[in-house]
């Protein structure tokens, strides 16, 4: 059944008129900015160290601001007699201060006392999160402060957020694909502290990184602030590292099903006069055998190799990850508010149970990736609040990936095998595969915020990266005839973005217009038709992106946002160079492009009992890059899909009482083909049809209940329940084949239960989680079954002063 294109509306036209409206608004309202009194609040801790990121609210006027790196927040106020300041930050106790109209002209200083930990009610939208969420980009924010006592992995936490579906190809550490408002794969970038993870190695990716290192998760959907310096197409997952102004030592250990062990240590210590110097350390270790049960695999039943279906355990899927990150820095220099050196090292060892499909198991291929990362970060802001601030970071990263696949065996799903003449299980090679790839990259990021006038701020950001791929493949040389890594392959990318933020009618309307430029130059291997080496190819691309977002504060409780962006994603090093394991190079790729529109209404009740939002989105995306099977055992990235997506999402969080919270979200996205590709791999006859093998309706629910009775329990007990639902979807195009015969990724409802206990002194906690309580068969990709019921126990000790 084909869709009729005449049914579609024409969002680009809407988008054009929106532009005119917004520009008109910018020009006509500039003169309306009022001149008023200003109030500056300085927030520090017990040690008089400035606290950035604290939320300062003026209760009566429903105004709020976040303290900058100097711990300051400023307000422009009209005529008033008296206002109440409320200052809060997760991890600290909140403070109130009443200020009258005769407040002194210098700063008002408020001291926050740090709390060791904060279990309490899980705040999907905490107060700081609310502020970030209420910016024009309207990101979703999940604070992890209250979650660290439970053993939930990062991918699971992200998966519970509205509009997102994380698809994994197995257990712990397995490859993950984030789908965000209809775009996925490399179109959704993951950042850690404003630096893209693809530059730092897989240890920082969401399937590896420990939530204990992270303060909060920010999700930007389709509309991306310029300071990220990103060429993401569909959105950004931004993991913000944990920050603390107190000395602390946080040690945790998790043990669970499938021989899962996780350990972590996070600490920070200040030194010197005025606590000017600091050192921080994050260490994490994760291991799982991932040997969970899967259903209906063929196992041999006689010496001829006749088979029968049986339930079996995965037997070659072990995963071990280790990471250490150290930071040393100085605060409050004349020329730097914060100067720090960050060095990290990581290693990921993985057994490969199968390739893309789980039909035939592998028994011996392994990979080993290690990374060394270094970065120097500098931040400085003006003495006068909100005048300007600047950040710079430069880093050098080394990532080496080796893959060994040389076994002369054919495995069955019961772990038995028969010898074979060939070497390697991942393909049919002469001597198997032993590529060792070394990616060296240098990056430089700078961002400047500058206040042009009272209601106009400028942001200028740039991200430059240079990647060099070298390596060797001794076994694979017999395939490519010449070692393709003999000569280095290079990828240079430069991004520069400029944004103008304007506020009108006393912050009733905030508008951000941005322009971005993307440039890349690659020097990469080219192959002949017979897959043999064919020299190197130079390719260049230069693209402009632009966008505008508008937030209209309709009332104290209701915000309306509307935004659009024309964005570009340039091919990355894996797409251009390939991995020589089973991905061939393609230096002829062109950038992906997308026209994104978002609109949403957010409601935040004054008593904070209800927060909710409803949003709609549209994506028109061309030249999407897909990994496509070229021939037996070889794939390559190709510009294949041109799609159109529309959808909506709704989420609501309700806290009828202080210790109880319920949160629900659901997403519908209809992704349809709007153009065939030039190779005929995705034919034009599917124009208008929904993209197969892609979830289109999913949702999450969460309940949290906290028992706080220090006398009875000597601490706090928290109960949690979460539910993930995905509606069934076809693996292949819906229009092909009788419905009764079609392969279906079935509807799945996964239930998880958590209970955690935090002792009265908040020094230690225990968390227990049961994932997939009812042992549902779970799939993200056809034939690759995910784990059934599993149990994890986490112990945590936190020392702080």
């Amino acid at each position, binding site marked *: 059944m084909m869709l009729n294109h005449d049914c579609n509306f024409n969002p680009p036209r809407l988008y054009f008129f929106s532009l005119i409206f917004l520009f008109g608004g910018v020009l006509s309202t500039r003169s309306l900015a009022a001149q008023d009194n200003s109030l500056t609040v300085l927030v520090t801790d017990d040690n008089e160290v400035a606290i950035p990121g604290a939320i300062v609210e003026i209760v009566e006027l429903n105004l709020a601001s976040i303290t900058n790196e100097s711990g300051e927040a400023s307000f422009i106020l009209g005529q008033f007699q008296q206002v109440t300041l409320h200052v809060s930050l997760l991890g600290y106790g909140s403070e109130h201060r009443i200020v009258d109209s005769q407040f002194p002209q210098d700063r008002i200083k408020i001291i926050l006392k740090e709390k060791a930990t904060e279990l309490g009610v899980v705040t999907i939208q905490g107060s700081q999160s609310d502020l970030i969420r209420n910016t024009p980009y309207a990101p979703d924010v999940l604070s992890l402060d209250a979650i660290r006592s439970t053993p939930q992995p990062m991918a699971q936490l992200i998966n519970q957020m509205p509009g997102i579906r994380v698809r994994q190809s197995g257990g712990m550490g397995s490859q993950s694909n984030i789908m965000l408002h209809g775009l996925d794969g490399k179109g959704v970038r993951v950042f850690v502290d404003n630096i893209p993870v693809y530059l730092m190695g897989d240890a920082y990716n969401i399937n590896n990184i420990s939530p204990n290192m992270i303060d909060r998760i920010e999700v930007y959907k389709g509309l991306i602030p310029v300071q990220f310096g990103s060429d993401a197409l569909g959105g950004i997952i931004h993991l913000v590292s944990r920050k603390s102004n107190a000395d602390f030592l946080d040690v945790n250990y998790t043990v669970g099903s499938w021989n899962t062990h996780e350990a972590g240590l996070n600490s920070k210590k200040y030194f010197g006069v005025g606590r000017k110097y600091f050192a921080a350390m994050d260490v994490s270790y994760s291991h799982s055998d991932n040997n969970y049960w899967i259903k209906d695999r063929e196992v041999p039943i006689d010496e001829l190799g*006749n088979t029968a279906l049986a339930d079996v355990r995965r037997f070659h899927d072990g995963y071990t990850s280790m990471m250490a990150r150290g930071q040393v820095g100085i605060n409050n220099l004349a020329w730097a508010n914060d100067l720090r050196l960050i060095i990290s090292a990581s290693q990921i060892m993985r057994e490969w149970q199968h390739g893309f499909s789980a039909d*035939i198991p592998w028994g011996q291929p392994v990979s080993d990736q290690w990374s060394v990362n270094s970065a120097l970060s500098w931040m400085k802001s003006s003495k006068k609040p909100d005048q300007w601030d600047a950040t710079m970071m430069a880093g050098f990263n080394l990532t080496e990936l080796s893959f060994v696949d040389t076994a002369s065996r054919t495995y069955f799903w019961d772990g038995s095998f*028969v010898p074979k*003449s060939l070497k390697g299980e991942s393909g049919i*090679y002469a001597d198997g595969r032993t590529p060792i790839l070394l990616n060296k990259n240098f990056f430089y990021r700078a961002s400047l915020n500058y206040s042009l006038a009272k209601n106009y701020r400028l942001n200028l950001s740039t991200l430059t990266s240079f990647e060099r791929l070298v390596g060797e493949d001794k076994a694979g040389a017999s395939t490519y*005839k010449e070692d393709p890594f003999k000569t280095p392959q290079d990828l240079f990318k430069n991004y520069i973005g400029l944004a103008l933020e304007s506020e009108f009618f006393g912050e009733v309307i905030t508008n951000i217009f941005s322009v971005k430029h993307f440039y890349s130059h690659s020097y990469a291997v080219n192959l002949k038709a017979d897959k043999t080496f064919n020299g190197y190819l130079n390719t260049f691309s230069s693209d402009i992106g632009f966008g505008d977002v508008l937030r209209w504060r309709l009332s104290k409780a209701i915000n309306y946002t509307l935004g659009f962006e024309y964005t570009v994603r340039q091919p990355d090093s894996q797409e251009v160079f390939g991995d020589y394991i089973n991905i061939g190079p393609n230096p002829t790729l062109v950038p992906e492009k997308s026209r994104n529109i978002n609109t949403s209404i957010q409601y935040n009740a004054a008593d904070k009992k209800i927060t909710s939002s409803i949003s709609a989105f549209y994506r028109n995306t061309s030249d999407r890059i897909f990994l496509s*099977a070229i021939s037996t055992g070889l794939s390559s990235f190709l510009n294949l899909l041109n799609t159109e997506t529309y959808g909506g999402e709704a989420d*609501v969080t309700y806290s009828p009482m202080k210790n109880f919270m319920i949160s629900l979200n659901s997403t519908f996205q209809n992704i349809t083909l709007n153009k065939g590709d*030039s190779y005929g791999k995705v034919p034009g006859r599917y124009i*208008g049809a929904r993209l197969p093998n892609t979830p289109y309706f999913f949702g999450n629910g969460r309940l949290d209940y906290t028992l706080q009775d220090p006398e009875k329990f000597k601490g706090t007990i928290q109960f949690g329940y979460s539910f993930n639902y995905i509606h069934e979807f076809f693996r292949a195009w819906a229009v092909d084949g009788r419905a009764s015969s079609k392969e279906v990724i079935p509807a799945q409802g996964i239930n998880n239960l958590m209970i955690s206990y935090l002792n009265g002194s908040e020094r230690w906690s225990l968390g227990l989680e049961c994932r997939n309580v009812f042992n549902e068969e779970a799939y993200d990709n056809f034939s690759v079954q995910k784990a059934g019921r599993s149990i994890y126990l986490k112990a945590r000790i936190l020392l702080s002063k």
Partner: protein
Amino acid sequence: MKNNLISKIGVFVVSYLLISCGNDDPTPDIDRDKDKLAKYALITRVANADQQTAAFYLQSLSSLEISGTVDNRDAEEVVPASGVGAYSHDGYVYINDYVGSRIQKWKLTAANKATLLGSVNVTELGYQGNILFKDTETAFVGGTSQSSIVIFNPTTMQKTGKIDFSAWSRLNEVTGFPATGTAINIESVTELLISGKYMYAALNYINDFASYTPATSACAIMVIDLEKVNVNSNDNSEAVLSIISDERASFAGSWNSGGGSYFMQKDENGDVYILCHNLWGNQRATFGKPAAILRIKSGMTEFDTGYYFDLESASKGNGNPVLNFEYYGNGKFLAAVQDPNAINPENPWSYYLDPIFQWWSFDLYSKSAERVSSQLTKGALSARCVFEGNNAYVPFETNEESYIMKINLGSMTSSKTFSTNGSPVLMGLE
């Protein structure tokens, strides 16, 4: 909450309306008799959205004299796989998923009901080659991973034995071709053919499969005495008589090229003709010799040194490899001739992605050729033909469309019959 519910309902209503805006193109009126096996089977291959596998759609046709588009709406989705050949025997359809190492048996009725009757797992073979059906109880298939040929019962879909030819193995032998030090790493039986008391197995000696680098330059055929084969034995090594080779041409056989085309055929005299194809043209320069046909006379166990047919010279000229051997009687066959000029030098994957073949008709006896159509097609993906009367029903696939062309084999005039949604494999089941 109410608004939330209303918005969900709205989204579903809109979705339903959009989905309901269906394609109203008329489906050809296909007569389907409910009481008998199908006369023809059409299998179409459609790349899945994961771009790593394909979905295959099986449906019956009662006639090939139809027009319009035969879409997949009423077809059975049979297997998600990366590579598939399709074969027919005794009225049943056998799907040979050579990447998934599985062979499935399907019953397809004239009423278009498809039923999976069984499957046999041949993981130990690696990538299995074409299937040879001897009778309703015996079939043979070889592969890349072992020096053996699996014997299975195509009725019960159970393996019953094998032919072990490890005593004849040349694995690890350093041949020095195409470069000094090159060794045989893969020894694969790609297809088989029975003529008289002998079974002939095409052998490919390969150094590297990923690049299809050969390790020998000759055509090699293993000769097996069928009378010595015990289908229930796990050995049968005694049945292997010899491996013969001929340096005049290169390899024969394939792993289900064109959806299951054969490269060995026998004519009405029982003479065996072998199309030696330069590994589908990929290694034309490596071999340095043209695609050619060699012959083994009926009842013989040696090549006929008096017969050699240079297919390239007879068709588009030297340097234009030829593959697939669709025999239609009296010494004539159709084959796909590669046009190297159709390969886009700017695209490293053009060889695999673009239509670069043309259909030609060859005559084994007069050693002549005639172009059937100038239309380029993806000959390695879609090549199985059905011959009926004086007509051939020949598949074409371009980057824009797939269809069946009816070709009058007398006049070589052609006309497009029906289009398909996906690469077509057409089979007569009667």
